[in-house]
C-alpha cells in the first residue's frame, strides 16, 4: 500500500501553527461571541430575518484555521514514509470515522433522553456548546490524529499495526445497502421538512448508522485488494468532505451554511459509498473484460 495524496512533512508544522490560533479564536467566537472589529463585508443595505446586513468573517476564519490546520497535521507524510505507515494511517482513519459516529450515537442518546424527560443536566450537555454538528467539523480529524500518532509512537521501536474488524456480509452489508438507499431521499426530505411531518425529521439523525452498517461490514468477496480500495476510498471521502466544507464556509452564510452543517452529518459516509462502490464496479468490469479476452485467446 503506497501513501498517496499526502502533503510534504513540513506541512505538519504549518498545520500546528494554524490549528492552535484557530482553536483559541474559535473558543472566543463560540463561547464569548467575539468578532474581530471591522473584519466584515457590507452585504446589503438592510438585514432580513435570515440575511444580515453585515457579514463578519471571524467565525469563518476560525473554522478555516482549525479545519485546514488539522487537515495538514493529519495528512502530511511522516519523516520516513513507507508502506506500513501508509497502512496504519488509513486503518486509523477508518477507525476514527467509526469512533466519531459512536460518540455521535452517545450524544444522540443523551439528546433524545433530554427530549423525553427534560433533564437539566442533559440540557446543558446536549445543547450548549456541545452541539454535535459543530464538533463534527473537526472531531473526525482530531480522533484520527490522536489514533494515528498513538499507533506510531506508542512504542519507540515498532509500530502498532492493529487490523480492522468488519461485520459479516450477511445480513449486515445487505441490510445496510438496502436501508441506506431506501431511506436516503425520505430522510433528506424530512430534514428539509418538506413533509411537514412531526417526527419525520428525526429520521435524518439516524442515517449515519444505516450507512455505518454498509461501510463496516464485508463485501460478498472481501480480500486484501478490496480492503485497500476500501481504505483509500475513505481517504478520498474525507478529503472531499472537508473540501466541500471549506468552500461552503467561504461562500455560504446564514441558513445556507446551517444546511451544509446538517448535511455534513452524512457526507463522509455518503461520499465513501459512492467512491467505493464505483471502484468496485470498475474493477468488476475490468476483470470481466479481461477474462473475456482471455477466453477468446484460448479459442
Amino acid at each position, binding site marked *: *500500500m503506497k501513501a498517496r495524496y499526502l502533503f510534504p512533512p513540513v506541512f505538519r508544522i504549518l498545520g500546528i501553527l494554524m490549528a492552535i490560533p484557530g482553536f483559541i479564536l474559535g473558543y472566543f467566537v463560540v463561547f464569548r461571541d467575539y468578532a474581530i472589529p471591522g473584519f466584515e463585508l457590507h452585504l446589503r443595505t438592510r438585514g432580513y430575518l435570515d440575511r444580515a446586513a453585515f457579514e463578519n468573517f471571524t467565525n469563518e476564519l476560525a473554522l478555516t484555521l482549525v479545519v485546514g490546520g488539522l487537515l495538514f497535521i493529519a495528512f502530511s507524510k*511522516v*519523516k*520516513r514514509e*513507507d*508502506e*506500513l*505507515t501508509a497502512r496504519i494511517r488509513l486503518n486509523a482513519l477508518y477507525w476514527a470515522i467509526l469512533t466519531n459516529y459512536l460518540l455521535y450515537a452517545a450524544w444522540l442518546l443523551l439528546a433524545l433522553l433530554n427530549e423525553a424527560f427534560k433533564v437539566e443536566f442533559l440540557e446543558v450537555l446536549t445543547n450548549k456548546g456541545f452541539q454535535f454538528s459543530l464538533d463534527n467539523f473537526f472531531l473526525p480529524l482530531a480522533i484520527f490524529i490522536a489514533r494515528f500518532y498513538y499507533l*506510531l509512537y506508542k512504542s519507540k*521501536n*515498532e*509500530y*502498532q*499495526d492493529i487490523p480492522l474488524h468488519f461485520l459479516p456480509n450477511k445480513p449486515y452489508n445487505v441490510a445496510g445497502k438496502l436501508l441506506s438507499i431506501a431511506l436516503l431521499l425520505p430522510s433528506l426530505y424530512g430534514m428539509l421538512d418538506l413533509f411537514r411531518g412531526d417526527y419525520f425529521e428525526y429520521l435524518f439523525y439516524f442515517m449515519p448508522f444505516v450507512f455505518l452498517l454498509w461501510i463496516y461490514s464485508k463485501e460478498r468477496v472481501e480480500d486484501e485488494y478490496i480492503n485497500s480500495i476500501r481504505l483509500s476510498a475513505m481517504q478520498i471521502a474525507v478529503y472531499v468532505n472537508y473540501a466541500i466544507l471549506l468552500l461552503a464556509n467561504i461562500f455560504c452564510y446564514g441558513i445556507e451554511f446551517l444546511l451544509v452543517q446538517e448535511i455534513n452529518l452524512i457526507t463522509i459516509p455518503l461520499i465513501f459509498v459512492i467512491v467505493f462502490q464505483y471502484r468496485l464496479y470498475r474493477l468488476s468490469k475490468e476483470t470481466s473484460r479481461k477474462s473475456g479476452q482471455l477466453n477468446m485467446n484460448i479459442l
Partner: protein
Amino acid sequence: MKNSLRVERAIKNMTQADLADLIGVSRQTINTIESNKYVPSTILALKIARVFGKPVEEVFILEEED
C-alpha cells in the same frame, strides 16, 4: 508467516537501521516485521531478500495456519 530477518541481519552484521536505509523504510517498520506483527508487501519482501542475496522463500516462511 515467520521470517529469518534477524538471523540474516546477524550474518551480514547489519543493524535494523542499516537494512531500513538500504530499502527505504523506517527502522520501526523493520522491527515490526521482525517481531511478526506485520506482513510486508511482495515488493518489500523481494527488496529485503535481494539485500540478503537469497530467494524470498528463505527469508519469509509460510506456517501451518497461513
